[in-house]
């Protein structure tokens, strides 16, 4: 038994001299008294941060005879703060503020995009009605109909409403904050945006062309008015198609 204890002690001394921290293998070993390690620090090569404060409890004598382990408040060699206490506190505060402000932005974005969706669906319904009534108007005036213009006023009221709704829908989309940066990639969001841009171009073209057509008709000028009305008709249905794609992309 005495020989076994001697071998164990010898092995422990060798291991300690080789710089292999036994206690460090247990990651949560408490640091020991500085006095126990002071003699070693001069001899040992620089260690990693995790091993530096650890000492070999077996380097002195037998465990029963070892001095009591007194955890130090600040381990030797690690008495520094990477960022400084103030910086760390301010960084934490900034991080908390950022998270809070991002949450507010997310809530605003959600609210505005929900309104955008509601307005968008309403606009889509009005655009469908405008196209149908507009086609009836075109057939009446230029497609061999009575020419009485029974659909002129309903068509005008519908397109004024549609234009107003479309503008409001676009404003809600443009004013929605973007708390996160998204990489540009082809997905339903990008398809929705491309279709919305196409619909916007179509609406602007419809307003301009519709104004020119109506003004020309009000001037009593028959030159090219049927062709302008035809182009107006085609662009209207194309715009409705863009709106349908935008709505479908949002849905799926």
């Amino acid at each position, binding site marked *: 038994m005495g020989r076994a204890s001697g071998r164990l002690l010898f092995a422990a001394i060798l291991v300690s001299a080789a710089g292999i921290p036994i206690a460090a293998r247990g990651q949560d070993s408490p640091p020991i008294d500085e006095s126990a390690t002071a003699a070693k620090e001069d001899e040992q090569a620089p260690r990693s941060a995790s091993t530096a404060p650890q000492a070999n409890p077996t380097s002195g004598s037998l465990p029963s005879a070892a001095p009591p382990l007194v955890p130090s408040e600040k381990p030797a060699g690690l008495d520094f703060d990477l960022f400084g206490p103030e910086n760390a506190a301010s960084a934490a505060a900034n991080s908390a503020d950022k998270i809070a*402000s991002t949450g507010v*932005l997310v809530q*605003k974005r959600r609210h505005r995009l929900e309104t955008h969706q509601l307005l968008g669906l309403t606009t889509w319904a009005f655009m469908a009605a405008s196209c149908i009534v507009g086609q009836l108007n075109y057939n009446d*005036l230029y497609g061999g109909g*009575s*020419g*009485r*213009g029974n659909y*002129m006023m309903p068509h005008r009221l519908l397109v004024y409403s549609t234009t107003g709704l479309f503008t409001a829908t676009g*404003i809600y989309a*443009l*004013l929605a*904050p973007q708390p996160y940066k998204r990489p540009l990639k082809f997905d339903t969001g990008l398809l929705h945006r491309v279709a919305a841009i196409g619909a916007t171009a179509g609406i602007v073209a419809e307003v*301009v062309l519709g*104004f*020119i057509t109506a*003004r*020309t*008709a*009000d*001037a*009593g*000028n*028959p*030159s090219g*008015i049927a062709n302008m009305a035809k182009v107006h008709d085609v662009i209207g249905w194309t715009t409705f198609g863009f709106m349908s794609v935008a709505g479908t992309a949002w849905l799926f």
Partner: protein
Amino acid sequence: MSKPMLKKHIAKSARLTVGLVAIALGLYACSFGKPDIATVPAHPTFEADVKPLLADHCLLCHGYPATRNAPTSFRLDVYKSPDGFPAAYQEANRFVRSIQDDDMPPAAAWGDGVGPNGKKMLQNWAADGYPD
């Protein structure tokens, strides 16, 4: 929304509004009516002078049958209707006056009416007693 982002959106919206207003003003300033006649005949007739003017400014709606919500109680595409239906001759006094006063065509209020030469020609036609 943060202030810089709000300012960015407002600036974007302002540019868009200015652009749309510029387009609207540009369209408003454009003329979509037929150009004025070049010369004023001293003694115009309906078939040679007045009917082409009416075709450029009036017959889109006031032909036969009337279209685009125009009144159906008269027609301007003929001098006199064979069936006695009120035509250009019977309505001459009224339609010449409405053209002179820029009541017709509807876009005359926006500057797309009959030009000064056309109005002068209609005056001469009226002075001669609305000849055929």
